[in-house]
Protein backbone atom coordinates (compact mmCIF):
# COMPACT_ATOMS: atom_id res chain seq x y z
CA UNK A 1 0.00 0.00 0.00
CA UNK A 2 2.95 2.37 0.54
CA UNK A 3 3.42 2.14 -3.22
CA UNK A 4 0.03 3.74 -3.87
CA UNK A 5 0.64 6.58 -1.39
CA UNK A 6 4.13 7.13 -2.87
CA UNK A 7 2.68 7.53 -6.35
CA UNK A 8 -0.15 9.83 -5.21
CA UNK A 9 2.20 11.97 -3.13
CA UNK A 10 4.57 12.26 -6.11
CA UNK A 11 1.74 13.31 -8.44
CA UNK A 12 0.43 15.99 -6.03
CA UNK A 13 4.01 17.18 -5.46
CA UNK A 14 4.55 17.41 -9.22
CA UNK A 15 1.29 19.32 -9.68
CA UNK A 16 2.37 21.74 -6.94
CA UNK A 17 5.75 22.31 -8.61
CA UNK A 18 3.98 22.96 -11.92
CA UNK A 19 1.28 25.33 -10.59
CA UNK A 20 3.83 27.29 -8.55
CA UNK A 21 6.03 27.78 -11.63
CA UNK A 22 9.02 26.06 -10.02
CA UNK A 23 9.40 23.72 -13.02
CA UNK A 24 10.57 26.82 -14.89
CA UNK A 25 14.33 27.30 -14.27
CA UNK A 26 14.07 30.89 -15.49
CA UNK A 27 11.61 31.66 -12.67
CA UNK A 28 13.78 29.97 -10.05
CA UNK A 29 16.82 31.95 -11.22
CA UNK A 30 14.62 35.05 -10.98
CA UNK A 31 14.30 34.34 -7.24
CA UNK A 32 18.08 34.06 -6.86
CA UNK A 33 18.58 37.26 -8.87
CA UNK A 34 17.94 39.43 -5.81
CA UNK A 35 20.37 42.20 -6.72
CA UNK A 36 18.99 42.81 -10.19
CA UNK A 37 15.38 41.97 -11.09
CA UNK A 38 13.88 39.91 -8.29
CA UNK A 39 10.96 37.47 -8.48
CA UNK A 40 10.07 36.63 -4.83
CA UNK A 41 7.61 33.85 -5.85
CA UNK A 42 9.77 30.95 -4.58
CA UNK A 43 9.56 32.38 -1.08
CA UNK A 44 5.76 32.10 -1.26
CA UNK A 45 6.07 28.51 -2.46
CA UNK A 46 8.11 27.65 0.63
CA UNK A 47 5.76 29.55 2.95
CA UNK A 48 2.72 27.77 1.45
CA UNK A 49 4.35 24.36 1.82
CA UNK A 50 5.55 24.96 5.38
CA UNK A 51 2.18 26.37 6.54
CA UNK A 52 0.48 23.15 5.43
CA UNK A 53 3.12 20.54 6.29
CA UNK A 54 4.43 21.86 9.61
CA UNK A 55 1.25 21.89 11.78
CA UNK A 56 -0.30 18.82 10.13
CA UNK A 57 2.84 16.71 10.61
CA UNK A 58 3.24 17.79 14.25
CA UNK A 59 -0.39 16.87 14.99
CA UNK A 60 -0.10 13.49 13.32
CA UNK A 61 3.33 12.63 14.72
CA UNK A 62 2.02 12.71 18.29
CA UNK A 63 -0.84 10.38 17.56
CA UNK A 64 0.47 7.12 16.28
CA UNK A 65 2.40 5.26 13.66
CA UNK A 66 2.08 5.89 9.93
CA UNK A 67 -1.01 4.41 8.25
CA UNK A 68 0.76 2.02 5.84
CA UNK A 69 4.30 1.75 7.25
CA UNK A 70 5.50 0.25 10.54
CA UNK A 71 7.14 3.36 11.95
CA UNK A 72 8.28 6.89 11.24
CA UNK A 73 11.73 7.31 9.71
CA UNK A 74 13.03 10.73 10.68
CA UNK A 75 16.52 12.19 10.25
CA UNK A 76 18.53 11.45 13.40
CA UNK A 77 21.55 13.63 12.69
CA UNK A 78 21.24 17.02 14.39
CA UNK A 79 24.85 18.11 13.97
CA UNK A 80 25.78 21.13 11.92
CA UNK A 81 28.94 19.62 10.45
CA UNK A 82 31.29 20.30 7.56
CA UNK A 83 29.46 17.91 5.25
CA UNK A 84 26.22 19.81 5.72
CA UNK A 85 27.80 23.17 4.89
CA UNK A 86 30.01 21.94 2.03
CA UNK A 87 27.11 19.99 0.53
CA UNK A 88 24.71 22.94 0.80
CA UNK A 89 27.26 25.27 -0.82
CA UNK A 90 27.84 22.83 -3.72
CA UNK A 91 24.10 22.39 -4.15
CA UNK A 92 23.52 26.17 -4.09
CA UNK A 93 26.15 26.66 -6.79
CA UNK A 94 24.62 24.01 -9.05
CA UNK A 95 21.14 25.36 -8.39
CA UNK A 96 22.28 28.87 -9.36
CA UNK A 97 23.92 27.60 -12.55
CA UNK A 98 20.90 25.69 -13.87
CA UNK A 99 17.84 26.93 -11.97
CA UNK A 100 16.93 23.33 -11.27
CA UNK A 101 16.85 21.46 -7.98
CA UNK A 102 16.08 17.72 -7.72
CA UNK A 103 12.25 17.91 -7.60
CA UNK A 104 11.67 20.24 -10.54
CA UNK A 105 14.47 18.51 -12.51
CA UNK A 106 12.63 15.19 -12.30
CA UNK A 107 9.25 16.78 -13.06
CA UNK A 108 10.84 18.48 -16.07
CA UNK A 109 11.59 15.05 -17.60
CA UNK A 110 7.98 15.27 -18.81
CA UNK A 111 8.90 18.17 -21.14
CA UNK A 112 11.05 15.88 -23.33
CA UNK A 113 13.97 18.30 -23.41
CA UNK A 114 17.50 16.98 -24.07
CA UNK A 115 19.16 19.59 -21.84
CA UNK A 116 16.96 18.50 -18.93
CA UNK A 117 17.90 14.85 -19.53
CA UNK A 118 21.59 15.76 -19.44
CA UNK A 119 21.10 17.69 -16.21
CA UNK A 120 19.23 14.75 -14.64
CA UNK A 121 21.83 12.18 -15.77
CA UNK A 122 24.65 14.24 -14.26
CA UNK A 123 22.60 14.83 -11.11
CA UNK A 124 22.28 11.05 -10.64
CA UNK A 125 26.01 10.68 -11.36
CA UNK A 126 26.51 13.23 -8.56
CA UNK A 127 24.34 11.16 -6.17
CA UNK A 128 26.41 8.10 -7.04
CA UNK A 129 29.78 9.84 -6.56
CA UNK A 130 28.55 11.55 -3.37
CA UNK A 131 27.58 8.17 -1.98
CA UNK A 132 31.07 6.79 -2.68
CA UNK A 133 32.69 9.81 -1.01
CA UNK A 134 30.40 9.46 2.03
CA UNK A 135 30.91 5.73 2.48
CA UNK A 136 34.71 6.14 2.43
CA UNK A 137 34.64 8.30 5.56
Amino acid at each position, binding site marked *: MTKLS*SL*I*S*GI*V*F*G*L*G*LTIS*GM*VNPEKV*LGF*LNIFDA*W*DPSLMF*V*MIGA*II*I*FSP*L*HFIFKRKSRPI*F*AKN*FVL*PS*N*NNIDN*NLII*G*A*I*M*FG*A*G*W*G*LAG*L*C*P*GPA*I*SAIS*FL*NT*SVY*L*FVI*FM*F*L*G*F*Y*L*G*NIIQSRK
Partner: protein
Amino acid sequence: MNIINFTPVSAFVGGSLIGFAAFVFFVFNGRIAGVSSIASNSIIKNENRFDNILFLLGLIIGPILYSLSGKEIESVLTNSLPLLIIGGLLVGLGTKIGNGCTSGHGVCGISRFSLRSIVATIAFIITGVITVSIFGI
Protein backbone atom coordinates in the same frame (compact mmCIF):
# COMPACT_ATOMS: atom_id res chain seq x y z
CA MET B 1 16.40 46.00 -6.95
CA ASN B 2 13.24 45.72 -9.06
CA ILE B 3 10.52 43.18 -8.49
CA ILE B 4 9.39 41.39 -11.67
CA ASN B 5 7.24 38.41 -12.69
CA PHE B 6 5.96 38.06 -9.12
CA THR B 7 3.12 35.49 -8.93
CA PRO B 8 2.29 35.22 -5.21
CA VAL B 9 -1.08 33.46 -5.55
CA SER B 10 -0.03 30.60 -7.83
CA ALA B 11 3.21 30.29 -5.86
CA PHE B 12 1.29 29.97 -2.59
CA VAL B 13 -1.30 27.56 -4.02
CA GLY B 14 1.39 25.38 -5.63
CA GLY B 15 3.42 25.52 -2.43
CA SER B 16 0.41 24.38 -0.38
CA LEU B 17 0.03 21.39 -2.68
CA ILE B 18 3.69 20.54 -2.17
CA GLY B 19 3.15 20.75 1.60
CA PHE B 20 0.10 18.53 1.34
CA ALA B 21 2.00 15.98 -0.78
CA ALA B 22 4.74 15.91 1.88
CA PHE B 23 2.04 15.37 4.52
CA VAL B 24 0.55 12.43 2.55
CA PHE B 25 4.01 10.85 2.30
CA PHE B 26 4.54 11.38 6.03
CA VAL B 27 1.14 10.09 7.17
CA PHE B 28 1.06 6.97 4.99
CA ASN B 29 4.74 6.09 4.55
CA GLY B 30 6.16 7.69 7.71
CA ARG B 31 8.92 9.30 5.68
CA ILE B 32 10.16 12.78 4.83
CA ALA B 33 9.45 13.82 1.23
CA GLY B 34 12.95 15.02 0.42
CA VAL B 35 13.32 14.57 -3.32
CA SER B 36 17.13 14.37 -3.37
CA SER B 37 17.06 11.54 -0.79
CA ILE B 38 14.23 9.72 -2.57
CA ALA B 39 16.02 10.04 -5.92
CA SER B 40 19.48 9.07 -4.67
CA ASN B 41 18.15 6.15 -2.60
CA SER B 42 16.33 4.85 -5.68
CA ILE B 43 19.73 4.06 -7.22
CA ILE B 44 21.72 3.34 -4.05
CA LYS B 45 19.47 1.45 -1.62
CA ASN B 46 17.30 -1.62 -2.09
CA GLU B 47 15.09 -0.63 0.83
CA ASN B 48 11.83 1.00 -0.36
CA ARG B 49 13.20 1.15 -3.89
CA PHE B 50 9.86 0.64 -5.59
CA ASP B 51 8.21 3.29 -3.37
CA ASN B 52 10.94 5.74 -4.33
CA ILE B 53 10.64 5.03 -8.03
CA LEU B 54 6.85 5.45 -7.90
CA PHE B 55 7.21 8.80 -6.13
CA LEU B 56 9.60 9.98 -8.86
CA LEU B 57 7.21 8.69 -11.52
CA GLY B 58 4.47 10.74 -9.81
CA LEU B 59 6.66 13.85 -10.09
CA ILE B 60 6.81 13.28 -13.86
CA ILE B 61 3.05 12.57 -14.12
CA GLY B 62 2.15 15.80 -12.25
CA PRO B 63 3.01 18.23 -15.07
CA ILE B 64 1.48 15.87 -17.66
CA LEU B 65 -1.85 15.90 -15.75
CA TYR B 66 -1.66 19.67 -15.52
CA SER B 67 -1.10 20.06 -19.26
CA LEU B 68 -4.17 17.85 -19.92
CA SER B 69 -6.21 20.79 -18.59
CA GLY B 70 -5.08 22.62 -21.74
CA LYS B 71 -2.80 25.08 -19.97
CA GLU B 72 0.70 25.76 -21.22
CA ILE B 73 3.63 25.08 -18.89
CA GLU B 74 6.53 27.48 -19.18
CA SER B 75 9.97 25.98 -18.74
CA VAL B 76 13.04 27.76 -20.04
CA LEU B 77 16.63 26.70 -19.42
CA THR B 78 18.79 29.74 -19.88
CA ASN B 79 22.40 28.65 -19.38
CA SER B 80 24.71 26.82 -21.79
CA LEU B 81 24.97 23.04 -21.88
CA PRO B 82 28.39 22.81 -20.15
CA LEU B 83 27.10 24.94 -17.26
CA LEU B 84 23.96 22.77 -17.02
CA ILE B 85 26.10 19.63 -16.85
CA ILE B 86 28.31 21.10 -14.13
CA GLY B 87 25.14 22.29 -12.40
CA GLY B 88 23.62 18.80 -12.48
CA LEU B 89 26.77 17.25 -11.06
CA LEU B 90 27.00 19.85 -8.27
CA VAL B 91 23.30 19.45 -7.39
CA GLY B 92 23.69 15.66 -7.16
CA LEU B 93 26.96 15.74 -5.20
CA GLY B 94 25.93 18.61 -2.94
CA THR B 95 22.54 17.22 -1.96
CA LYS B 96 24.05 13.78 -1.29
CA ILE B 97 26.87 15.15 0.86
CA GLY B 98 24.61 17.71 2.58
CA ASN B 99 21.72 15.22 2.94
CA GLY B 100 18.99 17.32 1.40
CA CYS B 101 17.70 19.89 -1.05
CA THR B 102 14.95 22.51 -1.26
CA SER B 103 12.28 19.96 -0.30
CA GLY B 104 14.10 17.94 2.39
CA HIS B 105 15.85 20.86 4.12
CA GLY B 106 13.91 23.86 2.77
CA VAL B 107 10.34 22.63 3.25
CA CYS B 108 10.28 19.57 5.53
CA GLY B 109 13.31 20.44 7.66
CA ILE B 110 12.21 24.00 8.39
CA SER B 111 8.69 22.66 9.11
CA ARG B 112 10.22 20.34 11.73
CA PHE B 113 12.16 23.32 13.20
CA SER B 114 15.44 21.50 12.46
CA LEU B 115 18.33 23.91 13.04
CA ARG B 116 20.45 21.78 10.69
CA SER B 117 17.99 22.32 7.85
CA ILE B 118 17.62 26.03 8.55
CA VAL B 119 21.41 26.45 8.33
CA ALA B 120 21.57 24.37 5.11
CA THR B 121 18.73 26.36 3.51
CA ILE B 122 20.39 29.70 4.29
CA ALA B 123 23.70 28.35 2.93
CA PHE B 124 22.31 27.11 -0.39
CA ILE B 125 20.18 30.21 -0.99
CA ILE B 126 23.15 32.53 -0.34
CA THR B 127 25.38 30.43 -2.62
CA GLY B 128 22.67 30.38 -5.29
CA VAL B 129 22.34 34.17 -5.13
CA ILE B 130 26.13 34.60 -5.44
CA THR B 131 26.27 32.15 -8.36
CA VAL B 132 23.51 33.99 -10.24
CA SER B 133 25.19 37.33 -9.61
CA ILE B 134 28.37 35.93 -11.20
CA PHE B 135 26.99 33.87 -14.10
CA GLY B 136 23.75 35.78 -14.70
CA ILE B 137 20.42 34.31 -15.75
